[in-house]
């Protein structure tokens, strides 16, 4: 440590971190969007500790198929080995640290480092070192020099996640009902596969602004007004500002956005799948999508009503009725890389697939008619968080505070219903302060708030 440098904990103790967001007033300290030390804590205490989406099984159909993703800023290789297992390996050679894999996807028999030629098997074992017997005189213990693996890799509905924390709870418990409902939304029309092509672009914004925006159905009518004027979509038919439903789950999981009113869902519940298709086609449904009967198994009787946006904490946004997912990958406190994955049900009829791809291509992504207008709002909000005076002006997450109540459905699913509000954003930042304040999983389990009940 350089002279005069202080450990992060001296700069940001638990009390100071907890004070960054006050859930009783809704005021957020904007330094959360600019402070470099907090960002370092995020890499350690959120990304390395939590469960990160790394790939979908359809991206790795064959032995040797690989896909590069990130846990925070740590690049990982997701690769299917000879035994059929998906491995998640840190992309860093055990010799000098060079990245083994410099392509973003492909097919490999093994991973050979371009620096000195160390060679690793698809499961991360070190299997070859040039000059092992001569230069190393035969005393290099290769068995101790395999690639570093994620501490745990687990999957749900074909979605693979990884964590660097060996004491993390299971993926099932981490996602909880709310997170599993979110992934259930993706698979509500059947098992899915990734459409080839992941749109990627970089925005000069803090990653959390990109996350909290996904819960924000307040901005849609204004930010995206021009997409409505252009005739690409009917914003009013999508937003339903008076029929919003929010679901909040442990560890910061959340779903926010419009929802079908209960009586509407009850009517749909009585329909056969054929009748549902007709109902959507005839335009009688208040939403363009009507889910088939099987959806209730994956999303629950309350969750199935959501037409909104799940976020798998910390940074996995599910949108377009579950047909797209966007990762918000941190690149320093003031930059975020957006990765758009598009899904279609396996064996979908060509016309259905084409309709999804058309929506996905033209709505989101950097050239998307909707998405074009988001980036500058986020980048300017980020920039304003680093001025001396402007950073002291708090962010006001006041909407609906203390005005709504959590109701519990018959199967225990908890829902907040009412007008457009900022419940999910407050839950995200409240969870964030707890994740950042806790030094390890054990402490997080002690201090974290359970999902809210009662008046919120």
């Amino acid at each position, binding site marked *: 440590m350089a002279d005069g440098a202080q450990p992060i904990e001296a700069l940001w103790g638990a009390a100071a971190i907890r004070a960054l967001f006050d859930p009783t007033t809704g005021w957020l300290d904007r330094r959360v969007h600019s402070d470099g030390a907090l960002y370092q804590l995020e890499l350690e205490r959120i990304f390395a500790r939590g469960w990160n989406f790394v790939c979908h099984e359809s991206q790795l159909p064959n032995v040797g198929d690989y896909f590069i993703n990130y846990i925070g800023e740590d690049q990982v290789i997701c690769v299917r080995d000879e035994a059929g297992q998906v491995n998640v390996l840190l992309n860093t050679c055990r010799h000098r640290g060079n990245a083994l894999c410099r*392509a973003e*996807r492909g097919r490999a028999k093994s991973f050979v480092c371009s620096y000195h030629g160390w060679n690793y098997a698809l499961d991360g074992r070190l299997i070859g070192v040039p000059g092992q017997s001569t230069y190393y005189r035969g005393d290099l213990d290769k068995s101790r020099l395999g690639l570093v693996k994620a501490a745990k890799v687990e999957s749900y509905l074909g979605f693979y996640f990884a964590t660097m924390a060996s004491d993390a709870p299971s993926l099932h418990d981490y996602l909880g009902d709310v997170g599993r409902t979110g992934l259930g939304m993706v698979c509500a029309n059947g098992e899915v596969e990734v459409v080839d*092509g992941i749109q990627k672009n970089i925005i000069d914004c803090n990653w959390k602004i990109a996350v909290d925006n996904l819960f924000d159905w307040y901005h849609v009518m204004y930010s995206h007004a*021009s997409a409505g*004027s252009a*005739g*690409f979509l009917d914003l009013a038919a999508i937003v339903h500002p008076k029929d919003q439903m929010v679901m909040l789950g442990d560890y910061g999981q959340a779903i926010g956005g419009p929802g079908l009113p209960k009586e509407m869902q009850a009517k749909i519940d009585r329909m056969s799948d054929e009748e549902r298709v007709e109902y959507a086609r005839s335009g009688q449904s208040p939403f363009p999508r009507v889910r088939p009967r099987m959806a209730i198994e994956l999303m629950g009787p309350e969750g199935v009503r959501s037409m909104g946006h799940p976020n798998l904490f910390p940074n996995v946004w599910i949108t377009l009725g579950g047909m797209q997912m966007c990762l918000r990958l941190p690149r320093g406190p003031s930059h975020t890389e957006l990765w758009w994955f598009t899904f279609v049900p396996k064996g979908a009829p060509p016309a259905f697939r084409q309709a999804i791809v058309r929506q996905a*291509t033209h709505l989101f992504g*950097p050239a998307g008619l909707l998405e074009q207008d988001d*980036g500058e709002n986020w980048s300017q909000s980020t920039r304003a968080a680093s001025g001396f005076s402007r950073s002291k002006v708090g962010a006001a997450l006041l909407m609906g505070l203390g005005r709504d109540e959590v109701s519990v459905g018959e199967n225990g699913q908890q829902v907040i219903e009412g007008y457009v509000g900022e419940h999910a954003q407050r839950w995200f930042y409240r969870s964030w302060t707890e994740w950042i304040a806790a030094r390890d999983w054990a402490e997080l389990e002690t201090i974290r708030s359970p999902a809210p009940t009662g008046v919120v």
Partner: protein
Amino acid sequence: MDATVGAKPPAKLAAADSGLSERVRLQYEVEQFLYAEAALLDARRYREWLGLMADDIHYWMPIRRTVTLSDLDLEFTKSGDMAYFDDDWGLLEMRVKKLEAGSAWSEDPPSRSRHFVANVRILEVAGDEITVEVCFHLYRTRLNSEVGGWVGRRLDVLRRAGGGFRLARRHIFLDQTVIPTTNMSTLF
């Protein structure tokens, strides 16, 4: 897609006296069309630009990936898979309408753009359609200090219509894999 890179060198000048002047004339016409079209975009005269598009225009920018030499078949997404642009005339009109709406906040204040078109090569003339390959650099700056841009190669098909051309196809192959800008609110 790069099969066109080694296109045949010009035939011997002596052997093609009259042919040469025809080719020079066509090259001139094509370049002037492309320059005028680029100038309309830089001047934000989007509606006039749209008027240069054929009814059956296909305006497409696939996604490029960083891959190893052995995986070059995976470099670009294929037609029908994901893309940045995959537009017909109706979608291009929507983009123009969006820019005209008065509420396209990402273009208000408007970007300053400069479309550089270079290395113009006529690859094929078939009936009234001319396939042209160009290299482009689209420079964009906006607000006080935002600087960005895109570089790549285009395959355009120009179709003779009236006294001039209409653009019947524009396939845009970016050199960038991660788009380095907040958005692509610009036309290429």
